[in-house]
């Protein structure tokens, strides 16, 4: 019998979906700023991008606070244990209806590949994009901070590269959201907070 566990708390779900909207907005507007296509017009799109960016900064302040006060930051501690099993599962098992090698619990919401991917987002993509983005926003005061000789293009390249990585993450992330035991299981969990898991004793299911 499958059993339901409450994995994603209300703030977490709010954080996830508002962040999703903001990141998608930032990607759409950001690539226009980058000159890939023309949708809203440069002046408007820079405005939208900036508003979305500051909103996301605000959201992250709450999220960081939440993660540290609840101890949920531990969910992102990386591990390679069973990572090979996960890779094998995505490469073969998923097609042959093999059992999922990872048992989700409230203490271990993320499988080892998720942990690695999210950690990469949090530690590499995030800081790169924030730092370069702020430099971008405060371009006019660079000389006051001794950055007069920093080429804007470097900042742009860093910002755009991180954005491209975020886009790739988004593609894979959205797809893997359908890789639960039913295609919509993970998505439902992210909306309601409740995930169906195999009926096993939670205490025994450590990865």
């Amino acid at each position, binding site marked *: 019998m499958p059993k339901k566990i409450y994995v994603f708390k209300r703030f977490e779900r709010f954080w996830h979906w508002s962040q999703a909207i903001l990141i998608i907005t930032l990607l759409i507007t950001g690539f226009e700023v980058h*000159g*890939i296509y023309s949708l809203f017009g*440069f*002046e408007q799109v820079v405005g939208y991008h900036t508003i979305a960016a500051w909103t996301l900064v605000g959201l992250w302040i709450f999220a960081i606070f939440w993660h540290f006060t609840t101890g949920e930051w531990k969910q992102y501690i990386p591990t390679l244990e069973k990572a090979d099993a996960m890779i094998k599962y995505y490469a073969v098992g998923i097609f042959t209806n093999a059992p999922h090698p990872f048992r989700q619990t409230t203490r271990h919401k993320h499988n080892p590949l998720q942990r690695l991917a999210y950690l990469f987002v949090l530690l590499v993509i995030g800081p790169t994009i924030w730092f370069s983005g702020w430099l971008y926003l405060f371009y*006019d005061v660079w000389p006051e901070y001794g950055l007069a000789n920093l080429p804007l*293009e470097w900042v*742009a390249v860093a910002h*755009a590269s991180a954005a491209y990585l975020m886009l790739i993450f988004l*593609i*894979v992330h959205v797809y893997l959201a359908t890789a639960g035991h039913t295609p919509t299981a993970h998505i439902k969990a992210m909306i309601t907070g409740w995930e169906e898991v195999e009926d096993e004793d939670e205490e025994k299911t450590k990865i």
Partner: protein
Amino acid sequence: MIYKSVGVGLFFAIGLIAASSNWVYGKTPDTVTPAPMQLSTADHSKFEVLQQRFKSGMELTKACLGCHNLAAKQVHTSNHWNWEIPNDKTGQLVGKRNVLNSMMVATSSNGPYCARCHISNEWKDEGFDFTAEEQVDCLACHDTTGTYASNKWHQLRVKCSACHVEWDKSKAREVVRKPNLSELAKQVGKPSVKSCGGCHFYSDGGDGIKHGDLDSSLATAPRHLDVHMAQDGLGYSCTTCHKTEWHQMMGSQYEPESKDEQGVDVAAGSRATCESCHGLVPHPESANPKLNNHVDRIACQTCHIPALARGGRPTKTYWDWSTAGRVDDKGKDIVERDDKGRVIYSSKRGGAQWAENLTPEYVWFNGRIEFTTMDDSIDPAGVVQLNTLAGGPDDPKARIWPVKALRGKQPIDAEQATLVAASLFGKKNDGFWKTFDWTASIDAAMKVAGREFSGQVGFVETEMRIPVNHMVAPAEDALACVSCHSREGRMKDVEGLYMPGIGSVPILDKLFLTMALLALSGVLLHGAIRVISSQKKG
């Protein structure tokens, strides 16, 4: 409320003073002559010395100098008088007397014809005395009717077709009328747009030909053409910005200021820069705050002069002297026009290209302009830069400026590989327009210039860039961000410039887009296999 009552009180007080002064003096003041310059404290039409018939410009000048006894001395030290400007930045001696272009080539060799725009009465040849006070032609600038410069020029009786390839005979009588000096003298005043425009709108042989941002449409400018000079707006004249002290004009094109860092100082006399009135933080707080971040690297003109030749007069962009002189079977001049009636070939002037609403070109410019002169050797096979605007992305004094580019082909001394002057006008048999003989024309011109000429005529492609300053559009017509911030934006040919909107290292974009596409096709393929394999089981 308090301000209102003070205001009303003041209003009555002023009315009372005005009324009582009339009452005290017992009469109403004389009606002020409706001269254009009502701000003046002098009505020249009442001066006794001007109540005479002037037979020559020199006679009139003597009358002017009777009161304005320092004026000629001041004029004698001005660029307008000397046509020769030592450029401190480059050490070159420039000015009209020294530089060349691909339009009318050179002033020095065209005797009285080019000199007719000089502010002198009778500069006819090399014998002209630049120290003669009575030679200063006061009316050249102080005529307020806007008729003098043109009439003066036409007294030369050059063949009309020399300039008016599209000559309308019906107007001939009007333009060649001798200026009535006595009448004009009574109407003198500060230079109007028309006074300056009498020469400056017609540089190099016709309305708007040379500059593109200076043509006769400015004399009756609507707001969208020039927000400062608009007849229905601020109504500035040229001298509002080109302030003059001691007859020295501010804002020479030979030594422009590319980046004014002094800010507002118009009270001390404008330096004919935008910043002189608008300051170093020119955009209001209500505007996009990014705009003020641009002023360190982008000249005001770049955004605020979105296009040249916007007043309905085309400007020449290309002048090819190498094909001039071709005549038809009967030996008559040829004139060819495009579908808009613009002359694209004439025997006298060669090939031409024109433009209206011309998008300027953009270059880094730090205020230093170096000219290629007849002293410099050139590469006859290359494109000779007649002037070089210095500056680049790493030069803090440089900003990106709009320029009007003049391109063309002009004569050279093929043996010495140098640029040459040429005589175009001329009643003798050495003017090109009379003989279509380059050798004779150049020979005559080089003699005037005191230079050697081998007799071997060639032609070289040339380019010249003139920084653009006029036809400032209203703010709502200024360039939008996207005009530059896009891959095909206006700055795409400006070197060493990175800005948002133009992408970055193209290979990086390709690499990442490929990766993203691979990720997308990867997950789609993965998903498809999942669907197929689950169907097989089902």
